[in-house]
């Protein structure tokens, strides 16, 4: 837990510095938490159950994904399929200046937990890629994604990706079914914030979505067992 908080602290510093660069913007009323966040449940979500054991349930194919161009944190152009290869993947969409309570910071904290869990299971880790994809291409440059990556200190194959432009980004969000919207002031000026129903996606070896987790209700134990369930599938999967 200490390592996790330390890494999140690093990200928070980056968030802070990004915020400071925006101070030149014309004066607008502050954006309250209620403007950026959605309400899901009453009170904090704490998973009060033991995740069902791996292999005791089915994960049907929810949807099939196309391939999409992405840019990695070294600035190299690649694609979703090329990054994944024939591996399983957990994909989280974020923007790095997000401070929404149940949004990106929580998703990233959970991705980091998965990274650490996978680091303890080398056989499984070889079959899994963690992918963090930004939906803020104008600010989340490869260099920024590299800085974020350094703050999280991945111990497994965890890539931090962005896109070359909103033109490249839009088909990805549409294909995954990841709603994202810029939150504007009433005069049409962008607040610098997004509203988004943040989801985390479990992909099988054939780039098919096998589960989707709501960030605010996400349980890392469940994701790990889902990964083990898919990993135990015969090659090609059950469906």
């Amino acid at each position, binding site marked *: 837990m200490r390592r996790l908080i330390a890494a*999140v602290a690093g990200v928070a510093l980056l968030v802070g510095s990004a915020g400071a660069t925006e101070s030149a913007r014309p004066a607008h009323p502050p954006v309250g938490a209620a403007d950026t*966040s959605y309400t899901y449940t009453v009170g904090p979500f704490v998973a009060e159950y033991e995740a069902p054991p791996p292999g005791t349930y089915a994960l049907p194919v929810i949807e099939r994904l196309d391939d999409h161009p992405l840019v990695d944190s070294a600035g190299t152009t690649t694609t979703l399929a090329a990054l994944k290869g024939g591996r399983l993947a957990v994909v989280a969409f974020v923007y790095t200046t997000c401070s929404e309570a149940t949004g990106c910071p929580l998703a990233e904290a959970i991705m980091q937990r998965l990274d650490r869990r996978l680091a303890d299971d080398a056989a499984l880790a070889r079959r899994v890629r963690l992918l963090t994809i930004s939906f803020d291409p104008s600010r989340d440059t490869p260099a920024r994604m590299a800085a974020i990556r350094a703050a999280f200190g991945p111990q497994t194959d965890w890539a931090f990706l962005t896109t070359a432009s909103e033109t490249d980004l839009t088909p990805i969000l549409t294909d995954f079914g990841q*709603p994202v919207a810029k939150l504007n002031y009433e005069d049409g000026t962008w607040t610098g914030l997004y509203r988004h129903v943040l989801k985390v996606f479990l992909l099988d070896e054939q780039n098919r979505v096998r589960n989707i987790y709501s960030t605010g209700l996400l349980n890392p134990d469940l994701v790990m067992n889902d990964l083990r369930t898919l990993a135990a599938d015969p090659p090609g999967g059950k469906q």
Partner: protein
Amino acid sequence: MRKTSKPRVLATVASLVLVFGAQQAFADETCMSAYMPKITGQEDYVYVWTVGAEGVGDGSDKLVTIDTNSKSPTYGKVISSVSVGGRHEAHHGGFTDDRRYLWMGGLDDSPIFVFDVATDPAKPKLVKTIDSFTKDSGGVVGPHTFFALPGRMLISGLSNANDKGGKSALVEYNNNGEYVQTVWLPDDAPYGYDVRVQPRLNRMLTSSFTGWDNYMTEFGKVVSNSEAMKHFGHTMIVWDAHARKPIQVLEVPGAPLEIRWALQPRHNYAFTSTALTSKLWLIEQQPDGTFKASAVADIGDPKKTPLPVDISLSADDRYLFVDSFMDGTVRVFDVSDPHKPKVIDEQKIGSQVNMVSQTWDGERVYFTSSLLANWDKTGKDNEQFLKAYRWDGKKLTPLFAVDFTKEGLGRPHHMHFGQNQFYKNQIYGGAGTRRSEVARAE
């Protein structure tokens, strides 16, 4: 964010990591999927899924939008109506997990109508019809509850195409309207009705009603047919929600209908009401993790068969509104002690009443009149309305009413809330058309 200092961000994020979530100050409607964002504050619209009635307007099922913002010049008026063509026994529906689309079902020939409510919340638009539900699902009939899961829709069926009886299943589609899977209910508890998930416990509850052959038959004929009366559900199933596997079958005699999970932390229980036995039931998790069902109150005088229908639990788990169809009455129970509900208010809403929906703040409560086309009362007792009330914790005070017969609309049933602010300044990444829709159009 610009106003947030670094230490505050750090503290916030650190506490998030510790609790795995965030305290939310406000939310909205109380029985929606926990996977779906709630609208906060004043609702601007109520969307009413309305059964077409012969000789009333165009006679078709329709989605009716009523202005519910008291500051609006059209407050309490119908501002939009979208007919879907024909009568399909319009019944229930639900939003997708992003709340951009409203899926509405028909219990007769099992269509699903998908409305876009995000582009213009004042004027929902029919964007897709799924007419292959029975074929897709391998024979399920009567899509009832639409419960949003992340990226998909969980639908409980009421019947099956084989014998039109009560054996049914849970069916899933992805948000594009593509079929995902069917999970048939177990042989020892085969009937379906409502389905609700409590994500915190990874537990899902289903309840049980009756099949097409009963719900499409006149109520008087069903009640007078002793054989037909044997074919009502008397069970609830506790499921492992993630695995979609039944864990426990609970005996809850008399057709348990709507399921309402408590909303507050550590409240590991749900309520339901039984239509035929007029009892309020508590389904509560025990210290060993299993669930127990107990009848905790009578609803009216069970000997008079008031026929309890919809129920609505307030966000603080204190008040439970219970409608009963035959006496057209709502009873408000104080369920602060869920084992000892007490009636604190009772009010006749009309000659018949079915659905009840309340806002998250609990201050406004909406009622509609229709149960099923063949079960609604006839003659002068066939009042068809939406009525809005204010609730002050002690009594209901009328706000406005819409006469659905006079307005040429039909029989109003399920209600959902819409709000302009929820969609304000939002631009969907896909700008409307999704890949699968393009493929289908081609």
